[in-house]
Structures are given as C-alpha cells and as structure tokens.
C-alpha cells in the first residue's frame, strides 16, 4: 500500500506534515549537511525582522527538567541580508525545500515592512509565519500575541501587503487560546501555528541570580507537550483554518497525538537539538504508524480524536 503523506493546508500544500520549528533549525543551511532539506514538509527559518539585531545577552539558554528555557532574543541578520546573503534565502532557493519565513517586529510597521520586502522577492518563499509570540524581546513579540486587538491589527495589516499564505504563530501565555485563534482567522490568517514557548524562569541557588541574563525565557521541549496539545485541540475547535501543532514533539508518537488533536501539520523544535535528524525520524514514524493501522493517508487521522464524555 502506498502511504499518502501529503498535507493540504489550503493555500499551502506540503509533501508531508513535518516542518521544523522556527528558531531551532537556523536558516536550514546549518542542517543541510545532515540530510537533504527537501525531505521535510517545510523548513521554517528563524525569525526575520527588517533590521539586524544582536539578540539578548548571555547566558541565553538553560536546561530544565524535560525541556529548556531560551532567551535568544531573536538575534538575526535582518531582511536584506536574509534576501541576499549566501547562507540564507539564496541557499534555500537552491535546496528545493518548501520554505516558510518567520517574521517579527517591534512595531506594526516593522511587520508590514518585512512582509512587503519578502513579498517583493518572494521567489522560493512558500508562506510567511507571523511571530506574535516571542516572549524574549521587550518591545513587540509577545505583546502582540497577548492582546486581541493588536493581534488582529498585525495580521490584517500584513495581510494587505502580501499574497503569500499567512500563518500566525500564537502565544500560549494567554487565558483563552480560542479567542486568539478566532481573532487571527478573522484578520485573514490562512493558518495558525502553536504553541510558541511558555514563559518561565530558573534561579541559581548558589549565586542567587537568574540562570538567564534576560531573567525569564521560553520553555520548550517535552515538559510543555500536554499544554501544547490541549491548546491545539482547543484552537481546532474554534476555527476552520488549518492548524500547525508544536511543543515538545520528540518522536512520531508525539506528532500523532497532535494530528489526532486537530493539527494538520506539526513542527519539530527542541528535539532537533537532541538529534538533528529527529524530523526525518518523525516522518518515517508517522508512515510506519499509518501502515500498522492500515490507513492510506495521513489526513485520515487529523482531528480524529474520539471524545466520549462520560457522566461523573
């Protein structure tokens, strides 16, 4: 039996449901020696702004139980270097991979500007992912992702300047993920991705200092999987647009949980640090699962969670 791993995300079609999570796979270049990037459903690059940026002081990461905190703070080359620097988009264009560019800004104008520049030189770019959920920068970032009005505004403004499929990446640091999912759907987002990291902290009890120079950072890895899965499920109940699920996916079994919960595609993040070929293992594992379950296509499991509310 031939297994069909194709995924239809509306305006975006992927050859399989496994993408890389922004910020954990650089600009693809760094991992190209480990496997051909075109094997992935999509490569999502690290957040790009109009300007180059230093990011946060160090230490920027700390390992915690079943996960890690990061406060990289969106260090990056800026959009011009991304468009023209050898290790960035020009390299990716040659790779034949499906490319999604994650964008961020400190102001709404920043978002508009970076989206416009990418729209203008969009050859090889398959979609934009609007990051309104980075917890590690003072201005912008998560401020947009925790305020319904701002979230709506960013997405609808970016919508006006690009025809590229738009994914909006939601923050988990909110009371109601459903409200944010509905808002960005309403603002014209074609897809939703979630979750970004959950804001956390760690303290060195010898020095009495925070373990991150930025004081707080974003929690990722297996520790957040249950929360991510719940939010994917809730969001999928609230909107009609496709959902890309992520948060603690370490292997195919984890990925399948997200698909069952309502994600049409998934992204592998922190697991790449444990094992650079983790995304490939996830693809292979999903395929084997479908074979074992005698299913012929991955779409047969999306959102198929069986809810049978029992009375207490």
């Amino acid at each position, binding site marked *: 039996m031939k297994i069909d791993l194709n995924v239809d995300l509306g305006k975006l079609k992927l050859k399989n449901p496994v993408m890389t999570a922004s910020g954990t796979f650089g600009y693809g270049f760094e*991992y190209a020696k480990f496997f051909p990037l075109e094997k992935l459903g999509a490569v999502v690059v*690290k957040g790009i702004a109009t300007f180059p940026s*230093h*990011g946060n002081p*160090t230490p*920027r990461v700390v*390992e915690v139980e079943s996960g*890690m905190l990061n406060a990289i703070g969106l*260090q990056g080359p800026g959009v011009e270097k991304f468009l023209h620097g050898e290790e960035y988009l020009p390299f990716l264009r040659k790779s034949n991979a499906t490319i999604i560019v994650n964008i961020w800004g400190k102001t709404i104008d920043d978002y508009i500007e970076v989206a416009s520049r990418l729209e203008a030189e969009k050859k090889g770019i398959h979609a934009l992912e609007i990051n309104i959920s980075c917890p590690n920068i003072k201005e912008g970032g998560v401020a947009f992702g925790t305020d319904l009005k701002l979230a709506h505004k960013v997405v609808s403004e970016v919508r006006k300047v690009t025809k590229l499929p738009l994914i909006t990446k939601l923050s988990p640091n909110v009371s109601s993920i459903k409200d944010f999912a509905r808002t960005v759907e309403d603002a014209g987002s074609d897809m939703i991705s979630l979750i970004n990291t959950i804001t956390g902290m760690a303290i060195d009890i010898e020095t009495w200092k925070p373990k991150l120079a930025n004081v707080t950072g974003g929690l990722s890895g297996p520790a957040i999987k249950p929360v991510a899965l719940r939010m994917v499920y809730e969001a999928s109940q609230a909107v009609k647009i496709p959902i890309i699920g992520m948060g603690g996916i370490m292997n195919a079994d984890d990925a399948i949980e997200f698909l069952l919960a309502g994600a049409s595609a998934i992204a592998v993040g922190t697991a790449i*640090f444990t094992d650079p070929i983790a995304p490939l293992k996830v693809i292979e594992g999903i395929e084997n699962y479908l074979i074992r379950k005698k299913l012929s296509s991955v779409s047969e499991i999306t959102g198929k969670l069986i809810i049978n509310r029992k009375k207490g």
Partner: protein
Amino acid sequence: MKNGEIIRNKRLKDNYFRVDFYSPELCKQAKAGQFAHVKICGIPNKVLRRPFSISDVSSEGLLTIIYKVVGAGTEALSSLKPGDTCDIMGPLGNPFSPSVKSDIPVIIAGGYGAAATYLIAKNSPSPGILLLGARTAKDLILTDEFKRLGFEVKVSTEDASEGYGGRVTGLMEELLADKNRRNMKFYACGPHGMLMAAGKLILQHGLDGELSLDHLMCCGVGACFACVVKVKADNSDGWRYARTCKEGPVFKASEVYYDLEPE
C-alpha cells in the same frame, strides 16, 4: 564495534575522567580545537547534548575526551561502561590554526583546557611551552602527557599548592618579559576570565594568539544562537555576537571584543 561505543571510561584524577569512544569517521576528520557533541544516554529528563573538546584521536578510530564531572550529564557519562553507546556529532567548530616549524607554540590552559589543546602539542613540529593554571593542585591534568611530547610545562595554582602561586597570566607575564621569544604563537583554552586576560596580554605584546571560547550550547551547528560571544564588528556598536559552535570555538585574540562588563 559500533559507532559511538565506549571502549574505555576511567577516572584520570580527582573529578576528571577520560573516555575513549570508537568513532572512526570523526577521527579521520578531527583537527585540534574542534569538539564533539555527545548525546549521553541515560541522563534522566535532559534534552540537550553535551559538547566536549576532542582531546585526542587515534588511527584505530578512538576518540578521546577528557571531562570533569560537574553536573547530571557528566555524572551520567562517568557511570557508563565499555559497550555502552553514545550518539556523537562531530567534529564540529573551527580548529586552531596549526603551528608551523618556526613557531614556538605556547599553550595557556585552565580546567579542561589542557585536554582541548593536547592535539596542538601533539601535532606541533616544534616543541613548545604549556602554562597550566588551576585553583588547586588536584585540578592540574595531563602535565606528564605534555612533557612526553617534549613540552616545557609550568603550572600555577591559585592556592599555591603546586608551582607558581597565582593565576596563569602571572606565568604568561614572566614568559613575555623574556624578550628573546618573539616567534611565540599562543593557544589558549580555559575559563572565560582567564581567556579575556590572556587575550589582552597577547595583544598588548603585539603577538599572535588564538583563544578557544565556549558557551553553553544547544544545537552545536550554528542554528540556535545560544552559544554566542562578542567579537569585533564593523557596526555602530563595534561588536556583534558570534556563534562559538560555528564561527568558533577558536577565535583570533585580535577578533575578540574585550568587554568592560564581566560575563
């Protein structure tokens, strides 16, 4: 033998251990100053690999790492037995530039720095000098091995329990006072503060030197920007953050941005 199989794993001295992995591909490519990124099997609850300098490689495909037990990962590594297997990425990072016949290689090392620079000494066409610093005598490692390579070894301990009493930069100053040694080429690996002091001294004397800077790592390949240090740059700030895993760990002393702010 499987790739990544442990062949030997023994205590070297105090909290320092030496492990040999079977890793023939890595051995063929490895150069002094590069590192291996190791997924230590059996660390509970941990998602990250641990980076270790490549201390030695053999023609039989044995990769030697010398490590100090400082936390859960190195603790778990120290309890692994021959036959256990770890997944190893590498060699990663930029190596030291090899010393040439006309150089006198001077190695400045602290902590596991002696392990990280051992291959420099082994591959050096001319014997040189190791200046090894530590808090106390029990942290001095590999002195005999360097001597066996014909290196002159001088040690310093902060508590004066062995050798020169004070910091290793004290030894460096003594050496630099000797004006006859203009062809010295410096290689340094050790704690951040030591490297910054050594780097400045090297530059003050107008000499050539390379520093192996490192920082907590995630990906090890330049993708995550966790491991950065400041290097000089042509921008309004005068510096940028460079990834030690990809653009380093070895930097020229002249590339490094010597920040006023301590790390």
